[in-house]
Structure formats: C-alpha cells, structure tokens
C-alpha cells in the first residue's frame, strides 16, 4: 500500500474526481475537477481512469512524500514542481522512488495544478464520488482540504521497470489567455446595454470553488420584481442588482435569484478556471 503523506498542504489542496452527478435537485453540486481537461490528462498519463481521484491544488501547492515507488503525473498550472530537489517536468509520467519528496510552490501560470498517482485511492465515495465539497464537509479526505500529516493510502499495483514515459504534446501557457468565449444567458435581455457584458474583467481574489466574482465595469441591469429563483450550473454568469458578475463554478449553487446573463461553455470553463486574479481577459461572444 502506497502512503502519500502531506508535509505542507498548500492553500487549498483537496481530493477531487470527475464529480458528483444526480443530486443537484437537493442542492448538492457536481464539484470535482475545476479544470477537467488538465485533470483527465494527468489521469491518462498515469494509466488511471480519466475521472479517477487525484489531488487538486490552488494557487500555492503542497509538499508530499511517498512511501513506495510509484508513477505520477502533474498537469495544469505551473507550480514549479521539484522532486527530490530537482525540478521535474509536467505533462509526462514520472517515476517516483520510495521516500521521495515532491514540492510545489506558487503558480507561475494558471491557478489549478493536478497531481495524479497511479493506483486505486482509498477515499470513500459519497453520493457516488470522492470529490471534496468543503461547504458541506462532504466527500474527499474527511470532507475538508488536505492538512499537514494527512496520509492518503493508494493501492498501487505497478511494475516500475515496465512503465513507459509518456509525454503530452500540448502545453498551455495560461498567462496567454486573453479571451473567454461566452454565450448569452436566459436573462441576457435584462441588460440595459448587452454590449457591456463583452468587456474586460479580472477574477476577484475572493473567488473560490463555489463562484468567481468578476471585477470590471458595473453592468446596468433592469431587474424585475417578479423574478424568481432559476436553475444554475457551472459556467453560468449571474448579474447582481449592484451590477457585479458572478460565475457559478463547480461547488456552486444549483439555483439562484440573480438573472443569468451569460454562460461559459464547458470547454471554456477549463481555461477560465486557470485565470489568475491579476490577469485581464475579455468576455467575447461565442461564434458557433
């Protein structure tokens, strides 16, 4: 049994998987990978199922040790990973020797980093998923973010000598993202000037897995007294009465009372969730 020990947890490091479907009716969000594409690549690289459990780190990564030889892959944001004091590559399978230490620092590009480790993770499924949803203290490792001294057990059937090094060809420089494509939301017509939506924004540092608050122009919106709560899903852009935009994310609510003026499509949400708070970007009209 491989034991992965958390030496330093980073600032919001959690266990995630492909998400928890089927319970939005009760307000239980899908949770899971914030950048599905990067997470799935990490799992593919180590030979796990695409939606398998892995570690997701935000902004500043953690430090981990490994009790056995194992195969890992790191994808997503560049948190300057160092394996046994040597800089290690991302987007490829890596062999990690027993007793090794893997350290991450702050993200130079992107926000979310994924650490996949080959094997079957000993994390209980809650409503069919191992994804951590911290607001309700459910799923993942004891319903919370990882802390120092936590130990994750992984059944690790591997033959180190036979594991090939696989390199993923397409690397993304998240700092180059300057546009996010959006579609009009169901209440787009509530905007007094629809073009205002297609402006330059930054993500507020107070954003989290539940939602991203956008900093930018105050949006003029015509509210209706009779407006009732409507359904939401990750990627929907709500506009508050004060003209602030909030993007619903993976741990976000399933219904809400603010008009839904835009929608970030699934594939764009991966890129959106890698934007740093200091990074300016334009919301642009979806072309197809």
């Amino acid at each position: 049994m491989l034991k992965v020990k958390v030496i330093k947890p980073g600032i919001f490091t959690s266990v995630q998987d492909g998400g928890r479907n089927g319970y939005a009716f009760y307000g239980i969000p899908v949770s899971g990978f914030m950048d599905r594409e990067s997470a799935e690549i990490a799992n593919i690289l180590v030979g796990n199922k695409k939606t398998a459990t892995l570690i997701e780190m935000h902004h500043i990564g953690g430090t981990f040790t490994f009790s056995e030889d194992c195969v890992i892959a790191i994808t997503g944001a560049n948190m300057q990973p160092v394996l046994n004091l040597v800089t290690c590559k991302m987007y490829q399978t890596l062999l990690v020797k027993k007793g090794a230490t893997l350290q991450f620092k702050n993200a130079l590009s992107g926000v979310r980093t994924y650490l996949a480790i080959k094997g079957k993770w000993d994390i209980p499924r809650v409503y069919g998923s191992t994804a951590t949803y911290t607001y309700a203290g459910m799923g993942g490792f004891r319903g919370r973010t990882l802390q120092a001294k936590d130990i994750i057990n992984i059944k690790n059937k591997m033959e180190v000598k036979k594991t090939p090094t696989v390199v993923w060809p397409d690397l993304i420089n998240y700092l180059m993202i300057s546009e996010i494509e959006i579609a009009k939301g169901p209440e787009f017509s509530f905007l007094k000037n629809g073009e205002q939506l297609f402006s330059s924004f930054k993500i507020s540092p107070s954003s989290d897995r539940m939602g991203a608050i956008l900093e930018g122009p105050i949006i003029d919106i015509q509210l209706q007294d009779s407006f009732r709560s409507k359904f939401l899903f990750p990627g929907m852009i709500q506009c508050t009465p004060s003209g602030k935009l909030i993007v619903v994310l993976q741990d976000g609510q399933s219904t809400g009372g603010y008009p839904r003026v835009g929608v970030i499509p699934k594939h764009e949400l991966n890129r959106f969730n890698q934007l740093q708070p200091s990074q300016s970007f334009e919301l642009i009209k979806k072309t197809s």
Partner: protein
Amino acid sequence: MEDQGVILTPIDQKRNPAITAQQIQQQLQEKKCKYIDEVIATSEEIFIASSRSKKAIKELRAMRFKKTSITTWNVPVLFNECEDWKKISAETSITREDFITELLQLKIMVQMLGFLPGFVYAEGLTKKMQVPRKEIPVANRKANVLAVGGPYLGVYSIPSPSGWYIIGDIPLQILNLDDGIPIPFKIEDRLVLKSISKKDYEQIFNKKLNLVSYNA
C-alpha cells in the same frame, strides 16, 4: 446552452413543476436513467442536465411516475434580533414583532429544493412581507437558519454566502449526508413554524435531534 441540457416549461401552470422534477429525481436515484445527469426544479421550469438532450427527452417520455405523499413538519425557531431585521422593517414597514406574529399564522409550503445542500424554498409570505434579496451576498456562518428573500422563506442547512435575510435559528439538524435522501422535506410538504425561547432552543439543540426525530 444546448450542450448542457434541456429546459422543460410546464404546460399545466397550476401544477408545481418541482413535483414532476421530484419524480424524475426518484428515477435518477433508482438508477433508471441513462441519459439524464441531473434534474433541477424551480417554480417555473425544470432543467434536465444531459450531454445527449434528445435521448434524455425520449427517456423522460417513457417514465412512469409514482405519486408522492405530503407531510406536515413542525419547525421550532428562535427568532434572532440581528441587523437584518432593520432592513426587513424598512422594506415592509412591519415591525419585527408583527412580522413574526404574521409569519406564525401563515400556511407555509415547500415550493422547491436546491440552491445548496439542504436548502428549502417555501412559499406563503404575503406580498407585503416580501423583501428584495441583498444586493451583494454576505457570509452566513451558521447552519440551520430561517431566512427570507424575495417571495420565499428559506432554510439554510449549511453555512454559505447569503443574499437573504436571516431571521431565526432552528435547533435541529436538517441535512443528512449519510443516507440516500439528503433532506426529509418534499415538494408541497407543509411547515408549521413555532417560536421558541433561547432556553427551549438550547434544550432541543442539546438533545441533538434532527427534523425527523423531532417530528416523530
């Protein structure tokens, strides 16, 4: 939005669409759905999350629904004296005391679930008791609280950002994330609110009751 799912608008406006959604949810939990990932109900529409919407609609058409029963729940509330009352009084011109008196006499019915785990939207507030939601949500650090927002009464079962006005504390655990059904409330269940003292609150709270055991 087509890649995310399909919106169903009810033909029969008298029937709460959340009832149908609840019946679809039952099929989801019984793992009878192949193409439906999620169902979300609101008072005006149902959203079916699916990456294969046409197949999901076909699946919906083939469904046979079971009838659901209605339960009346007694809900004890310790009405607070927090700052939110000032806004409620300013918006409604009703004092805190009068608002509570009116509230306790209302027929309150579960309209829909959703928003957050264990959150309940209930209707029954008179027009003059309705308060627009806050312009910017603020952190609510408590679980099991009663709130008002727009046309609804709501119950927050977990702490979360809130655009609603928190008016009281419920000494019962409402959310249960260990069982198959996370929350005992069903659509169209009735809520009977009862104002309790701080002493009552502590007594009930210390017994560590949940909504079901309190009502047993």
